[in-house]
């Protein structure tokens, strides 16, 4: 109970200290340091123990622990302090922590499509001189996402792809033939819609549910496949382009799924996998990382096929994941870079130390271990490995690359939600476009 006593006296004393601190800090001034200094090409192992702070959201502290332990064993002078932040609020926490002075984050997870925005904000350090020869070692889409104006601004370590799960029991009941897992057997979205309608009529609760039901990550390929593009063009991709025919086609198609009751309204993205896992959904375009959850339901009879495309349109699949960024204010840049290299490059990267892999690492050598995951040995996942390899190599499309991505994602998610809830597609897209124009004005100055 001595804790209480101590704290009880604190307010008065604390207040005095604070008033003093306030006076001092207001004199100290701010002065954000810029990152113009070039990094050394050779990394030197520290001779004295140092601790680097790594803020991440992709993995929980428990999941990443074996990776950190392996690193610390190989580099006894470097300790890594991993700070797992809640995924949903990671980006806002990061912006507060990077501008805070005493937290001194050295390395942090960078959501790939935000790389350009982070560079523009001055959050990232140019890594080109330290890692000049990563081409061929890292997945090309990941590398493209991490490169801004020809400079490597972050080190990709993990990417992703999508497939489509289908419920064999529900398809059989509706007399729908099982689609193949071969990319040549890719269904069209039109076909999926008509099959989903049949499946629903034959007893499926839902015909089709998108994993990331209102997220640009998974819905961008619809617009791209319909010929509408990623959503913006012009210099710096800062001119909205979401009112074209392709976007209208894709979004009208998506909107109809909900109007016809094939997809559920009012369901959060985090909830959708439970619907498929319960056997309520005929088609589920989604991430391979749900495989373990689906396989856990022994009575769920399902198969996988390629992420569909529109008839006559090109195949497009979601991709991207996380890179590592080096904070310009880091005081342990060498140690931080040694850690980043370990995560992304050394012997195939971090993935070899994880117990279970949810998504493929960006490191090409390291990805073999991912493809050998136990989750893909289940007969219900047959064909998924070669399918994922094909998609990553041929059809993966990056999200819109622009300094205004954060605002774009914010506005476009609201537009998706409105379209799902039944708002007029053309009006919604026109409003979102106008909204983007005003919001992006600051970047065009």
């Amino acid at each position, binding site marked *: 109970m001595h804790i*209480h006593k101590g704290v009880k006296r604190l307010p008065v004393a604390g207040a005095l200290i604070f008033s003093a601190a306030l006076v001092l800090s207001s004199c100290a001034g701010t002065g954000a340091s810029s990152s113009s200094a070039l990094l050394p090409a050779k990394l030197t192992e520290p001779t004295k123990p140092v601790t680097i702070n790594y803020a991440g959201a*992709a*993995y929980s502290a428990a999941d990443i622990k074996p990776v950190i332990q392996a690193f610390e064993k190989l580099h006894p002078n470097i300790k890594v302090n991993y700070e797992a932040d*809640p995924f949903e609020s990671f980006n806002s*926490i990061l912006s507060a922590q990077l501008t805070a002075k*005493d937290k001194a984050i050295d390395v942090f997870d960078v959501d790939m499509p935000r790389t350009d925005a982070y560079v523009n904000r001055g959050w990232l350090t140019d890594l080109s001189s330290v890692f000049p020869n990563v081409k061929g070692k890292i997945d090309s889409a990941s590398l493209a996402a991490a490169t801004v104006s020809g400079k490597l601004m972050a080190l990709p370590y993990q990417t992703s792809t999508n497939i489509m799960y289908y419920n064999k029991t529900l398809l059989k009941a509706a007399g729908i033939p099982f689609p193949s897992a071969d990319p040549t057997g890719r269904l069209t979205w039109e076909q999926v819609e008509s099959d989903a309608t049949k499946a629903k009529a034959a007893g499926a609760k839902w015909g089709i549910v998108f994993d990331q039901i209102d997220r640009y990550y998974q819905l961008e390929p619809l617009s791209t496949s319909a010929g509408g593009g990623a959503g913006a063009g012009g210099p710096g991709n800062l001119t909205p382009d979401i009112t074209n025919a392709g976007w209208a086609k894709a979004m009208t198609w998506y909107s109809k799924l909900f109007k016809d009751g094939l997809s559920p309204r009012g369901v959060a993205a985090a909830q959708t996998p439970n619907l498929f896992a319960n056997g309520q959904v005929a088609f589920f375009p989604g991430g391979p990382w749900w495989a373990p959850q689906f396989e856990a339901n022994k009575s769920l009879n399902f198969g996988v096929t390629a992420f569909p495309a529109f008839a006559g349109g090109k195949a497009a699949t979601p991709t991207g994941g996380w890179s590592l960024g080096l904070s310009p204010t880091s005081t342990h840049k060498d140690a931080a870079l040694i850690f980043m290299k370990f995560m992304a490059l050394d012997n195939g990267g971090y993935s070899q130390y994880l117990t279970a892999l949810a*998504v493929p690492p960006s490191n090409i050598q390291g990805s073999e271990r991912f493809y050998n995951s136990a989750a893909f040995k289940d007969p219900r996942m047959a064909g998924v490995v070669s399918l994922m390899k094909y998609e990553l190599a041929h059809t993966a499309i990056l999200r819109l690359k622009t300094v205004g991505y954060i605002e774009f994602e914010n506005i476009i998610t609201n537009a998706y939600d409105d379209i799902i809830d039944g708002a007029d597609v053309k009006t919604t897209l026109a409003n979102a476009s106008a909204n983007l124009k005003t919001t992006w004005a600051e970047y065009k100055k």
Partner: protein
Amino acid sequence: MNKNRPIRAILTIVAIIVSLLFLLPILWLLASTFRSQNETFASSDPINWSVLWPQHWTLGNIESAINNGFLRNLGNSILVAAVTVIVGLAISAMSAFALAVIPFRGRSATFAIIVLSFLVPFEAIAIPLSQSFSQWGLSNTMLALILPGLGNGLAVFTLRQFFLGVPTSLSEAANLDGAGWARIFWSVYLPLSRPALIGAGLILFLFQWQAYLWPVLVVSNQQLDLAPVAIAKSFGAFTSNYGQVFAETAVLAIIPAIVLLALQRYFVTSVSSTGSKE
């Protein structure tokens, strides 16, 4: 008391029905704590009793919460809330007493500052404030979690309203006996104010019990994570453990309810029942 029996019976039935309506979502939460998340999402449509009653009971959600260190997070939340309530009540009651009882120049102006302070949504100033905390070197400390909960204008406000209702004759009598303000506060006002202190305690408590944004801004050390932060972390980039979220939420709902139930006997103690009326 017995002459209105039928009316009392009807009113009791109304009270029970209303309570049940408020309770239903919590019963669902409890049921979802003891079944798999697949069952939770499967059982809501069409409606039947299994919505509120698990078909296959499991302790899996509670186990996974405990394995994730939820007990530690819960302990942190309890510690932070307890310190906040104890210290916060002391300093809020002191200011409320000054604002309600001690006559001094500048009283209305001070009260206006207090009112202004609770109009400001804490979340709206959390980012600049967290930067100040980090400049003061307070990041990743228990103190950083506790401090913002202490300066609570609402707690001062509710206590002031109560103190204003205490008959001034009491303090005047004490004053004539030669008692100073400190003694009047301690031996006249505080003993009379248990219900109001419980109310102010609730305000202070819930601020910390619900705290989410502030802790994630000032604390990055997992050892210091509060319970609501731990709940948010159950939704990862590649996982979503609803079952665990329900279990943790249920625990957070039940603990204060038990405390409040125990404190209810003080709700009848009040100025009127002490016999010291004007």
